[in-house]
């Protein structure tokens, strides 16, 4: 089973798999995950 989230958020740093957690702090959306990473309920996928 799979869950797909599609959401609108303030424009932020485009996610880069190489950069991982190093997003620019431009006040927009920032990812907090990497591809293939295991997550659990309640952990942050990203933040504004």
């Amino acid at each position, binding site marked *: 089973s*799979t869950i797909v989230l599609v*959401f609108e958020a303030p424009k932020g740093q485009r996610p880069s798999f190489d950069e991982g957690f190093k997003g620019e702090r431009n006040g927009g959306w920032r990812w907090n995950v990497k591809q293939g990473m295991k997550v659990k309920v309640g952990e942050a996928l990203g933040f504004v």
Partner: protein
Amino acid sequence: LNSALKNTKIEWKPIPVALGVGFLGLYQFYRIQRREQHTQSNGNESGEGNGRPEKRERIRPSGPWQVQIMSTLPLKALSRLWGRFNELEIPYYLRVPGFKLYSFIFGVNLSEVSEPDLHVYPNLASFFYRTLKPGVRPLDPNPNAILSPADGKIIQFGIIEHGEVEQVKGVTYSLDALLGSVRPKKPTPSITSSESSTDSTHAKVGDEDIIRADEEFAKVNGISYTLPNLFSGPWPKDGQPAEMPTDQSTSSTASSEAEVRADLALSDASRPWWAPASTKTPTALYYCVIYLAPGDYHRFHSPVSWVVESRRHFAGELFSVSPYLQRTLPGLFTLNERVVLLGRWRWGFFSYTPVGATNVGSIKINFDRELRTNSLTTDTAADRAAVEAAARGEPYSGFAEATYEGASRLLGGHALKRGEEMGGFQLG
């Protein structure tokens, strides 16, 4: 029978060549007829021809031979059979070793399971849909974070450009195909398809309810919310959104962004008062795909505080959604049965789509008791809707829609708090 088998003489004779040629000729004739019928039914769907299709076209995805073989299998029937099988009661003394073996194979952490006595689970289906001990999944304290809705693995994430979602590198599918047509369509209290409306237990909030920003309001389902609490962040003063730094490099893509936003019916004029921040902030659409493995906790939760306005049920196929098939079957998420929940959060549009799979075809939404997934009745209703649409000369939308406007007239939908359990995937 024994003597007949022993004493009957078997004589082998060569099959005449003419018979073989005749067989091949008939087979070719059958293939040509099938192709013509297929073309004719496609013509009917686009308003041409006189005949009528009897049901929806079966999905024939392109892909390697494994996918082709899989597409010939009755996956939904198999899924239902699998569900029935897993509902069979396991003998009492086999439950603990059975569930422990399952946990060992699929990596279930039994110390997190709310029920320490595994005898309580009568079958695998109930163990699969287990709950967890309170406090084992703490919510991220950052109020501006989007939380993981489930235990799982991040398969893909990114930004949506030109309305396309990337499944794997270079393979994309359109947002329209995933979520259905996203043209402006104000939710109406009535149902647009054969499925009936939302949970009748929702409390209704009258027009006379007036709220202040710091006041508790909307006792929806017995839960009170404050506005900052509902939108998980500080409420803008005087209804004005907080100014965000503008990214100058994004101006070149402003027109395409505007198109996407227009497609999503999120033009500034149509924005309700409770999503004010997006009006002045440049926004983009993002997506994230989370895969739940068989051993994972299979209930899902709300990632943010948001309002669900409507749901669309696509009664598609039930291919496996394993990472292998996600890589090999393009547009997998647009083929499978799924429930698309559409709504709004603090920054604008928000959608949440649980996608079913062969082993877990049943999607449950806690606040929508009318929803039935992986059901023969729903499939029949979808077939009927497809035929009716074809008879009207219209394309079949592919989904049945219900709105949650009745849940709260004030919010225009069903309110969910961050971390709140929304539903789950069940076996079969």
